[in-house]
């Protein structure tokens, strides 16, 4: 996790809020550093984490996780991390008939209507174990990334339904958190993606939006992060708070600074 980002979000692994939906979004840049942040943050917070990793392999997250001080292999072995490796599973599902329902079953079907098997997988992964003592603090669902589901033939409504069910179970019933990444396709006229992004924006408590700089590439400032706090359950009384920072990604950390205050410029 990035300590500077924790400071900006006014949170630490020990005292993070529960029952929240966080939306990560990237526009004209790569926002995956935010996924690595939250993965390591919640593992350090001793949460039970279900990671639906659709776009990269386990070893990719594992190697970056090591740089950030967490071992995904060990977390998986001790039962703290349930990792769905989408790419590997897709190969299994497409080339072999599966006996039991598979979370990515929809890849075999021409007109899959919903993501129910995937939700069942998440629910099973995060359900509390009735062994008496609570090993983990609270459950967390992390998805990287939801836009891939649209590329695989699911409609935006089906994906929104899936998140709705996950929120009901993880956030409301189990008092845990959900963190998802959606790309902002900008002017690519991707209607389904826009519906998904807008729908999730309305439901989220916190939106982190990584944007490329409007002026193009810069060696010392990789992008801009907009942090938007929302209170979806208390409409309009308190205005949504929004902050913008610029950032530079380094080998093991990300540094944040106010706009125009990059160390390279000062």
């Amino acid at each position, binding site marked *: 996790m990035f300590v500077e980002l924790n400071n900006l979000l006014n949170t630490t692994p020990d005292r993070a809020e529960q029952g929240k939906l966080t939306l990560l979004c990237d526009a004209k840049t790569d926002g995956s550093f935010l996924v690595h942040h939250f993965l390591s943050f919640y593992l350090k917070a001793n949460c039970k984490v279900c990671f639906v990793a659709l776009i990269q392999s386990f070893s990719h997250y594992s190697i970056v996780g090591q740089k950030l001080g967490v071992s995904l292999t060990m977390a998986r072995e001790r039962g703290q991390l349930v990792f769905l490796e*989408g790419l590997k599973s897709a190969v299994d599902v497409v080339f072999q008939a599966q006996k039991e329902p598979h979370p990515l079953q929809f890849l075999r079907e021409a007109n899959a209507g919903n993501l129910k098997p995937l939700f069942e997988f998440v629910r099973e992964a995060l359900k509390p174990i009735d062994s008496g003592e609570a090993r983990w603090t609270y459950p967390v669902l992390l998805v990287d990334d939801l836009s891939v589901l649209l590329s695989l033939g699911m409609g935006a409504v089906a994906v929104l339904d899936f998140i709705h069910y996950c929120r009901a179970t993880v956030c409301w019933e189990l008092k845990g958190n959900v963190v998802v990444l959606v790309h902002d396709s900008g002017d690519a006229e991707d209607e389904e993606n826009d519906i998904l992004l807008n729908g999730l924006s309305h439901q989220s408590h916190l939106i982190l939006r990584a944007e490329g700089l409007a002026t193009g590439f810069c060696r010392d400032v990789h992008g801009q992060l907009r942090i938007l706090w929302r209170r979806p359950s208390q409409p309009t009384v308190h205005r949504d708070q929004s902050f913008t920072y610029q950032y530079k990604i380094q080998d093991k950390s990300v540094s944040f600074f106010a706009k125009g205050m990059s160390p390279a410029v000062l």
Partner: protein
Amino acid sequence: ELPAPLLDDKCKKEFDEDVYNHKTPESNIKMKIAWRYQLLPKMEQIGPVSSSRFGHYYDASKRMPQELIEASNWHGFFLPEKISSTLKVEPCSLTPGYTKLLQFIQNIIYEEGFDGSNPQKKQRNILRIGIQNLGSPLWGDDICCAENGGNSHSLTKFLYVLRGLLRTSLSACIITMPTHLIQNKAIIARVTTLSDIVVGLESFIGSERETNPLYKDYHGLIHIRQIPRLNNLICDESDVKDLAFKLKRKLFTIERLHLPPDLSDTVSRSSKMDLAESAKRLGPGCGMMAGGKKHLDF
């Protein structure tokens, strides 16, 4: 129709001489220009320096000898030949062409041990896959013909499963795609997200740039649209964004695009404006210039 590789030493010498001739004799004279530019490298060449040979070289005017092809271990897939075959294929929702191609690739990966299932006894190697014109009607896909065809998810699903195959085996794949034929911008955005490296080639042939003096030495532009961050938070992004390529008989070069020095006394105003106009279109980073050609003074 593969080009002949340059294998023997005679060709190597010829190539090395070719490249050395680029170095002008004045390269050792200190340039007496504005002090600001004195320390900048002269005409930065992208890629390895001329003294090292990197990669493979071909002669585009000759064909690869048949003996060489037959001696190599390669597998070809031509869809019209396979479409009626009884290759056993699991049902899935892709177009039949893509389904067969995936099955074909997966078979080779499994049979030849690239996924670790049959340990490769001989020297370990990487399976190199090349797919041409993906998305074109030759693959049974209609995204080049219709804006919202019935198979709109076939291509992206194919790419996803292919990505899965590549990630779980010792293989690498290069794909060419005629994106100028795809009208649906959303598909191109999705294809980009599903890929690791994305490079765009823009040819000058048939465009107004063909006659532009700025581009006279080159055949087209190269756009590096995406590079991956694999196993890392950072990626090695270059700050050179204006690249042009030229294809010669024995060499494909990529160079940094630069405005040639304006040396002539008699160069006319209008040609200067043309250069500036095309420089405006080089990259999205360049700021908007005031409209009206007559107002440009530089």
